[in-house]
C-alpha cells in the first residue's frame, strides 16, 4: 500500500471512530430526552442549548468520580472486562459501508473502512466476543447479582444469535455474498428492491434478535434492575461503568447501521443512481445512511419506553420455539424459490 492510501485509511478510521463516539454521546442525550418526552416531561434541557451538552457534563462526572474496586473481586479480569466489551463494540463498525464510492486525489475511495470478504461473519463474530466482556464482568465481580446478569447474557446471546444468524442467511442467499458492499449493491434500484420488502420475515426476526443481542428492552434481562440491582455492572463505578455504558450504546449504533445495511439498502437512496452522480451522489448516499440509521436508533429508544421486559422463560420460549423455526422455514422458502427460479 502506498503512502496516500495509508493516509486515506487512517482518515477513514478516524472519521468512523469519532462519528461512532459522537453518536454514542448523542444517544445518551437522546435516550433521556426522548424518554422524558414520551412521559410528558422535558428531560435534560439546562446544559447548553436544549441540554445538548448534557452528555459532556455526564462524561466529566464519570471521569471525576471515585474509582472503587471492591475488595473480593478477581482484579485482572475485573479490570479487563470493560475493555473486552468496549473494543469489539467499536471494531464492528469497520466493515459497514456508510456511503458509495467517492473520487479523491484521482482514486476511487469506497466509504467503508475495511471491505472484508466475510463482512457479515466478522460482525457476528465480534458481537459474540463482546459477550465475554459481560460474562467476565459478572464473574470477576464476585457478586451474585453480577454473576446472574452475566450468565443471563450468555444464555440470551446463544438463544438469539442463532435466530439472528439464520435470518441473515436468507439475505446472504439473495445477495450471493458475505460482503456487505455486495449486499448493499444488490438492493440498489427501485424502492421495493430493498431486502425488507423481499425478506420481511427475516427482517422481523433480525430486528427482534438485535434487541436481544444489544441487551436492550424488552430483552434487558442481564441488567433487569428490579431483580439484579444492575446486572453485570453492579460492582463497577466511575469510568469503568461508563465504558460498559459506551459499549452498550456503541453496540446499538452498530446494530442500527447493520439493520440498515442488510435490510434497508444501506446507503442507497431510492430511485437514484448514486455511483453515476460523483461527489454529490456520495454525499447523498452518506446522508441517506445517516438518516436511516438515526431512525433505527430512535426505534431502539422508542421500543425501550413502550414495551415491558420479558420474563426469562418467555424470552427463551420466544427465542427457541418461535424465532428459530421461523428463521429456518424462511431459509427453506428462500432457498427453494431461488433454486426453482434458477432451474428455469
Amino acid at each position, binding site marked *: 500500500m502506498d503512502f496516500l492510501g495509508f493516509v486515506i485509511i487512517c482518515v477513514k478510521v478516524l472519521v468512523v471512530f469519532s462519528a461512532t463516539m459522537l453518536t454514542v454521546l448523542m444517544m445518551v442525550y437522546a435516550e433521556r430526552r426522548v424518554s422524558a*418526552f414520551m412521559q410528558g416531561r422535558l428531560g435534560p434541557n439546562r446544559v447548553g442549548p436544549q441540554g445538548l451538552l448534557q452528555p459532556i457534563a455526564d462524561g466529566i462526572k464519570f471521569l471525576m468520580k471515585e474509582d472503587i474496586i471492591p475488595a473480593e473481586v478477581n482484579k485482572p479480569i475485573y479490570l479487563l472486562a470493560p475493555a473486552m466489551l468496549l473494543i469489539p463494540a467499536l471494531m464492528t463498525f469497520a466493515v459497514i459501508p456508510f456511503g458509495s464510492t467517492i473520487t479523491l486525489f484521482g482514486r476511487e475511495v469506497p466509504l467503508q473502512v475495511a471491505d472484508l470478504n466475510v463482512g457479515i461473519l466478522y460482525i457476528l463474530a465480534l458481537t459474540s466476543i463482546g459477550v465475554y466482556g459481560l460474562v467476565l464482568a459478572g464473574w470477576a465481580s464476585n457478586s451474585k447479582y453480577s454473576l446472574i446478569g452475566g450468565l443471563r447474557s450468555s444464555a440470551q446471546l446463544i438463544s438469539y444469535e442463532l435466530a439472528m444468524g439464520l435470518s441473515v442467511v436468507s439475505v446472504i442467499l439473495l445477495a450471493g455474498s458475505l460482503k456487505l458492499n455486495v449486499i448493499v449493491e444488490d438492493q440498489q434500484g427501485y424502492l421495493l428492491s430493498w431486502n425488507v420488502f423481499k425478506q420481511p420475515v427475516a427482517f422481523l426476526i433480525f430486528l427482534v434478535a438485535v434487541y436481544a443481542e444489544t441487551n436492550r428492552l424488552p430483552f434487558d434481562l442481564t441488567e433487569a434492575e428490579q431483580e439484579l440491582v444492575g446486572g453485570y455492572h453492579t460492582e463497577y463505578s466511575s469510568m469503568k461503568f461508563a465504558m460498559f455504558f459506551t459499549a452498550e450504546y456503541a453496540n446499538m449504533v452498530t446494530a442500527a447501521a447493520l439493520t440498515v445495511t442488510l435490510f434497508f439498502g444501506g446507503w442507497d437512496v431510492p430511485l437514484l443512481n448514486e455511483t453515476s452522480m460523483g461527489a454529490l451522489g456520495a454525499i447523498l448516499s452518506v446522508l441517506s445512511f445517516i438518516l436511516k440509521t438515526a431512525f433505527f436508533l430512535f426505534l431502539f429508544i422508542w421500543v425501550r419506553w413502550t414495551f415491558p421486559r420479558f420474563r426469562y422463560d418467555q424470552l427463551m420460549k420466544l427465542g427457541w420455539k418461535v424465532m428459530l423455526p421461523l428463521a429456518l422455514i424462511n431459509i427453506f422458502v428462500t432457498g427453494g424459490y431461488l433454486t426453482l427460479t434458477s432451474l428455469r
Partner: protein
Amino acid sequence: MATIVKSYEPTFWDRLYLPALAKGLAVTLKHFFRKKITIQYPDEKYVPPDGYRGLHRLNKYPDGKIRCVACEMCSAACPADCIHIIPGPSPWEDGKERFPVRFDIDLLRCIFCGFCEMACPEEAIELTEIYDFSNYTRDDLLIDKEGLLGVYELTKDTNYYSRPNAGQDSEALTSDKF
C-alpha cells in the same frame, strides 16, 4: 344462576402480537408530541387557583386604615396557636375602639387551614396565593403587622404570580418583607 363466562380466544392476528406492538408504539409516539406538563419552577411559576391557602395578609380599607379590630377571634380559632395579637386603642376616630398594636404570625406553626379568615368578623385577615416564601432562618419566618400589610399591597390588585414582573419581586419578598 350460574353464568358461563367465555374467555377470549385470541385469533391468529392477535397471536402474531405485531398489531398490538404497533398500537403500543403509536401510543408512546402520540405522547412524544404531546404538550409537556413540566413547569420549569424558578423560571415559570405555577399560578394557584382562587381559594388557594398560602401566605396571610392583613386587609386595609381604601382610605388606608387597617380593617383589623384586634378582637382575637382569629387567634382563638387557630388550631395551631400561631397568631399573637397585642391590642391597643384605635388611633382613628371612626367608631372602632380597638386596633392591633402588634399582629404576629408564626408561619412555622401555621397549618394554613384558613380558620382565621373564616373566623374574622371584619374580613381583615385573608390567605393569599403566595406559596414560595421559604427562608433561611426561623426568625425570618415570623411575620409581623408590617409584613402582613406589605403582602396586602403585593396581592390586592392582581394574582401574585401573574404580575408583570413576578420573577424578580418574589426574591424581594423573602429577604426584606419579614
